[in-house]
């Protein structure tokens, strides 16, 4: 007699098996904590999903901004001061949509600014990105977008937007592949 059922288990498909076997999920003994202990992490909670993201402020070399930005911007531009941020060129949307002050607040340099003028902490920069990139934000919260840090085992840790995307130039660049298989070429030519 032909049966589509698996020999050992009464499941028609792996999805059925997953649904059934995860009903009594008790957790696992392994943890991924060891694998990101060198990185400072902060815990965030969005829509009941809570997970870790890397601390951002400690990673920005010239933070806090007010250490240099002690005067209004106009004065700093006019004076003969050392040039700064020469490496920043904005390639993010067009000028009708975005410029520096869409995200930065000249009055409050140490924080980011939402579209409505509210303050956003640099560590929560994903809140700034998610104002426009709502779809990506949904996927990121769930885990379909954004790279996981450490391992699959709990606790969940994820890269935040700015860990992969340069906020001033968020697109990925073209590059050469990491590998080229010369053996395959030989075999193909034979």
């Amino acid at each position, binding site marked *: 007699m032909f049966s*589509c059922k*698996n020999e050992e288990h009464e499941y028609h*498909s*792996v*999805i059925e*098996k*997953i649904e059934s*076997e*995860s009903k009594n*999920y*008790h*957790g*696992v*003994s*392994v*943890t*991924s904590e*060891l*694998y990101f202990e060198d990185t400072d992490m902060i815990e965030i909670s969005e829509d009941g999903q809570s997970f870790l993201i890397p601390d951002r402020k400690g990673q920005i070399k010239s933070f806090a901004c007010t250490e240099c930005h002690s005067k209004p911007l106009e004065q700093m531009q006019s004076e003969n001061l050392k040039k700064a941020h020469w490496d920043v060129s904005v390639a993010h949307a067009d000028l009708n949509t975005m410029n520096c002050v869409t995200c930065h607040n000249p009055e409050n340099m140490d924080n980011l600014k939402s579209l409505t003028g509210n303050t956003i902490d640099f560590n929560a920069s994903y809140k700034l990105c998610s104002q426009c990139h709502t*779809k*990506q934000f949904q*996927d990121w919260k*769930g*885990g*379909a*977008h*954004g*790279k*996981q840090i*450490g*391992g*699959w*085992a*709990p606790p*969940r840790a*994820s*890269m935040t937007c700015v860990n*992969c995307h340069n906020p001033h130039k968020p697109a*990925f660049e*073209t*590059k*050469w*592949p*990491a*590998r*080229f*298989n*010369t*053996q*395959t*070429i030989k075999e*193909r030519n034979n």
Partner: protein
Amino acid sequence: MSNNNKKWFSLNLNSRKKQTSNTCGCGKTTGGCNSHNSKPQMSDEDFFEAAVNASIGEERKKDGFDQVFEVKMDRRTAFKQLTASLLIGAGAVSTSCSLVSGEETKEKAQIDWEEQFKGNYKLMSDNEKKGTVDRLVRSYQIRTGKTINMSAKNAEEDVLFGYAFNISKCQGYMDCVSACVEENNQDRSSQMQYIRIHEMKDGKGFNFNEADDNYYHEVPAEGHFYMGTQCFHCDNPPCVDVCPVQATWREDDGLVVVDYDWCVGCRYCMAACPYDGRRFNWSKPEVPEAEINHNQHYLGNRMRKKGVMEKCTFCVQRSRAGKNPACVEACPTGARVFGNLLDPNSTIRWVLENKKVFRLKEDLGTEPKFWYYMD
């Protein structure tokens, strides 16, 4: 030997034929090298009797059926006795012809012997698994002077590994391929790769006939998209069904693994896999000593030999320790999602429940645990 017209070689175990000439390594038949005593301490026949007694004892008095089904000692003990008797023999030789056999050589011989006759990993108890892993580590140490770390960690309860691949995100950088080769000690000379990244033309769908998996130009190329294939760790794996010696099987956490020491290299599994997930060692796999990953698992990236199958194990040495496979960790675009399908809060479960996922050749009923999805 001139009066021996046999065209085949046979072990001279049961013939009680007494040696007519008393020869030794020095080539002479009389005097000179002090090993030709006129009265040997033990005649050849007596020595043979003693060796057989020491090795299989009363077992030889039984008929074939009894030997198999009424074994008084387990195989391990039997081998130990047999090995001991062989060492007695070796000792006898060394006294007469001064062959120096160090402790290490003996240990190596013992290890090789036990490794040669060990059972299928699938059927081993945890102690036996530990035994073979310890032997392999020690053997590597004796042979190379280097220490490796090999695990025999079993599948954990409440874990079923699954994988999701975002074809919108993959840019074809092949960092995953590189990381995989380095992590899993794959043969450098034949440039074996478990992962293939296929460059496909936009608008043509998954057309493997026109896809290229060995491109070399800046990526992503205009008008193309990229998708990766590797072992999908099917829940109903056809490769496992066809193996004549059960050298490959599905573990409880869903990993489809190979016992490289049980595999006979028939490559049936390679033919049975609909996804080109399996690789064969046509030549002796070689990895430069400096590049060897010393963090190994018996079922994973330990060193392979010529003539056996291997494949992606979702980096069993990493995944069973809670880590992500090397390809997931290396991917710069986050196109690869790995996790526990039985954990309702895992990211892999979120992808399966919230994205439009599909698998390759789903109609075959192989139930791959490797899903594709798009943004």
